[in-house]
């Protein structure tokens, strides 16, 4: 194999130090909005993004539906109705604060996106007169056509629009820069004796330069962990649902700094890994999410019936988009899997029942039997705007000759994932654990905020945008209230730089590759922290990972900054795996809502255990504490108490920004 010279300069050993008021880590949807909120408030802002902000993150190349826009002019539900419905649907293992912010402010962020040049309405009248369109506002709705709180949007226009706005506002964007550690000050005085955050360390992934970003407040928006149980060294980029770049480094750096976590014991049997068991999301015939409510047929072409929550068979396509008699609204979307009766919407008959009735595999999505506007909105808009569909699915299938009027697309397995995983193949999916926060989205460390998928039990794109903006606003308030940047120990910076560059000094013949370590960690997690856990297994897992940390991490080798980035990721994956093991040890019961089973504590959700177990690492010692599941209080009251300014000046898009 040819050896090439690296195309970028070698700056290993160099250090750049810079400062700002508000530092944002991660330039996905949440990070961009956090930076915009802070910049609008006159703060100097730096945004640090590991990839390239223009199309980075889960929503980098698009997303197709925006949930819980309860304040849009066509909505027939209130923010309280929907936010509380999510809390109840998730049995209170739920981020009530995040849901409420999304329900309350999400529509304002959509108006922002439109203002920045994103497309949120059918301005070309392509779907004029369609049942899901409001012809006055030109908004288009998904799922529940009566209550109209989920919008169909042109998400592929959003990241470029946000990137332009960041530039216009003078936010200093550091692309190709991975944040690696938090700067934590333990000094008495400035932070009232409490730990506070003074920015972050980072590395340029093209040159290897070490960066020190000092800041008065910091917002973490680096998404959630991945590759903990699922790894394939050949097609690494396909192992998980979310982008390869996001592996939970925010969690790992937070853990090292003493940040508190909730629900890290939760994981579900995997749903997506196109490196093996599943297909590319949205690329096979199905009737969920992007494809809701596609007509499905069996191998003989017999249509598969949709039923409402009472088992009543629905006769028309239109009925699939309305609540059942006596039901006000139903929930569907990213974190809704198998909803309770109260919130359950129309669905195709249960798989086992279909087989009993003689329906034959394979099944297909047959859009040719749907009204023209429904067919066109699924194939062409939703498949097209949804992440990762515009080119590899919509364009490529079309080039290959797929025509939704003439062809039906095959479905594999039973669910919308088109996959069947084993119990020990797990994934952080459907509102997994993450960073704990208060009503300001501040963590237990002063000056350190969190938003988007990095928060515990996070929801989707609308939640990322709205919690991002909210955290950016609170971080700006706190930055403007202090006059100096918290102290940084020089020795912390030196140690971090050394840690980051160490693999460059390991010889290939003495070392191990990051892939070998990732493979070993994910196998260990399948063995010791799979579907059913117990004390002895978990302890064995900790022991093995501890040995990897001691013996294998120092042997990781790399030849350039790209290798270094992948190596840092696996070191963080190792840390995240340890958090999961500790969290699993701490919960001494089994739990349905957490998809958590312990053979030594088989009792499901005993009443005395129905609370959060918060976990943090205090200088090497694991501390836990309990927190009641309703810690956020009454959503409306608590929100309004803290956001009077926003309500007066900004809500509903009433403020004209320069």
């Amino acid at each position, binding site marked *: 194999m*040819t*050896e*090439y*010279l*690296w*195309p970028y300069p*070698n700056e*290993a*050993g*160099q250090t*750049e*130090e*810079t400062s700002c008021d508000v530092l944002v880590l991660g330039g996905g949807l949440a990070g961009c909005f956090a930076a915009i909120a802070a910049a609008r408030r006159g703060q100097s802002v730096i945004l640090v993004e590991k*990839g*390239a902000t*223009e*199309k*980075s993150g889960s929503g*980098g*190349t698009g997303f197709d539906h925006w949930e819980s826009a309860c304040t849009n002019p066509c909505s027939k539900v209130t923010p309280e109705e929907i936010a509380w419905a999510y809390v109840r649907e998730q049995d209170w293992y739920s981020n009530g604060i995040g849901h409420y912010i999304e329900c309350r402010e999400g529509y304002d962020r959509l108006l922002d996106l439109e203002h920045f040049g994103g497309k949120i309405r059918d301005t070309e009248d392509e779907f004029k007169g369609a049942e899901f369109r409001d012809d006055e506002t030109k908004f288009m709705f998904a799922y529940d056509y009566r209550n109209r709180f989920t919008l169909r949007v042109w998400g*592929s226009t959003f990241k470029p629009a946000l990137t332009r706005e960041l530039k216009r506002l003078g936010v200093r964007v550091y692309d190709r820069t991975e944040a690696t550690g938090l700067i934590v000050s333990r000094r008495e005085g400035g932070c009232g004796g409490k730990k506070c955050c003074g920015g972050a360390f980072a590395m340029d*992934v093209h040159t*290897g330069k070490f960066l020190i970003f000092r800041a008065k407040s910091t917002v973490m928006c680096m998404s959630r962990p991945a590759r903990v149980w699922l790894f394939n*060294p*050949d*097609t*690494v*980029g*396909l192992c998980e649902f979310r982008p*390869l770049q996001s592996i939970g480094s925010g969690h790992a750096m937070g853990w090292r700094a003493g940040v508190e976590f909730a629900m890290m014991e939760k994981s579900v049997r995997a749903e997506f890994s*196109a490196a093996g068991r599943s*297909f*590319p999301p949205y*690329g*096979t*015939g199905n009737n969920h999410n992007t494809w809701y409510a596609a007509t499905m047929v069996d191998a*003989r*072409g*017999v249509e598969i019936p949709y039923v409402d929550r009472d088992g009543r068979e629905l006769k028309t396509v239109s009925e699939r988009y309305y609540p059942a008699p006596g039901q006000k609204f139903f929930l569907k979307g990213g974190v809704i899997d198998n909803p309770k009766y109260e919130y359950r919407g129309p669905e195709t008959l249960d798989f086992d029942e279909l087989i009993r009735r003689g329906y034959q595999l394979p099944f297909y999505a*047959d859009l040719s*039997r749907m009204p023209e506007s429904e067919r066109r909105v699924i194939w062409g808009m939703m498949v097209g705007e949804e*992440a*990762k569909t515009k*080119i*590899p699915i919509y*364009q*490529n299938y079309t080039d290959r000759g*797929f025509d939704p*009027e*003439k*062809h*039906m*697309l*095959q479905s594999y397995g039973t669910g919308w994932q*088109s996959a069947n995983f084993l119990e020990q193949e797990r994934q952080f999916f459907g509102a997994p654990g993450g960073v704990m926060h208060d009503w300001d989205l501040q963590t237990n460390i002063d000056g350190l905020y969190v938003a988007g998928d990095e928060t515990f039990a996070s929801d989707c794109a609308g939640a990322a945008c709205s919690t991002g903006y909210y955290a950016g606003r609170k971080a700006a308030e706190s930055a403007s209230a202090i006059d100096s940047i918290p102290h940084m120990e020089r020795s912390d910076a030196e140690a971090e730089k050394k840690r980051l560059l160490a693999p*460059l000094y390991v010889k290939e013949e003495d070392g191990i590759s990051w892939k070998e370590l990732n493979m070993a960690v994910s196998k260990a997690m399948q063995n010791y922290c799979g579907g059913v856990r117990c004390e002895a297994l978990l302890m064995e897992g900790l022991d093995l990972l501890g040995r990897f940390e001691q013996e294998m991490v120092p042997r990781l080798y790399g*030849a*350039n*900054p*790209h290798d270094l980035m992948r190596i840092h990721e696996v070191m963080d994956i190792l840390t995240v795996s340890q958090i999961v093991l500790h969290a699993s040890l701490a919960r001494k019961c089994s739990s349905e809502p957490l998809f958590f089973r312990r053979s030594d504590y088989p009792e499901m959700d005993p009443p005395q255990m129905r609370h959060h177990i918060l976990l943090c690492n205090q200088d090497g010692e694991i501390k836990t504490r309990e927190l009641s599941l309703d810690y956020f209080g009454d959503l409306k009251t608590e929100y309004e108490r803290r956001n009077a300014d926003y309500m007066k000046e900004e809500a509903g898009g009433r403020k004209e920004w320069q």
Partner: protein
Amino acid sequence: MTHENDSCAAGLSAGYSYRPVPCSTRPIIYNQSLCIGCNRCASVCQCDILLPSPVKGEHPIVAYPGECYYCGACVMVCPRKGAIRLEHPLMNQAKYVPVIPESEVLN
């Protein structure tokens, strides 16, 4: 503020190197006759798997094909239609068949 190069890294100042990492699939295929070598695709890829070619004007090198997330950003930003193609791995290409007209369904 930039500090001096410290001596411990001096051994590496000669420049880094890389070897493209082989992989069972070929996510990205370039058409050199259409590509103008502008490197837009490389600069937008969030996974940073494409590296500018050492030969000016030529298409980037797919250095880390196994790390492709199959998002399509590189194709979306390319100014020359057809210069770059993204293909799912063969195992992930879903099957489709002609519809069965409702009139022909036996039931």
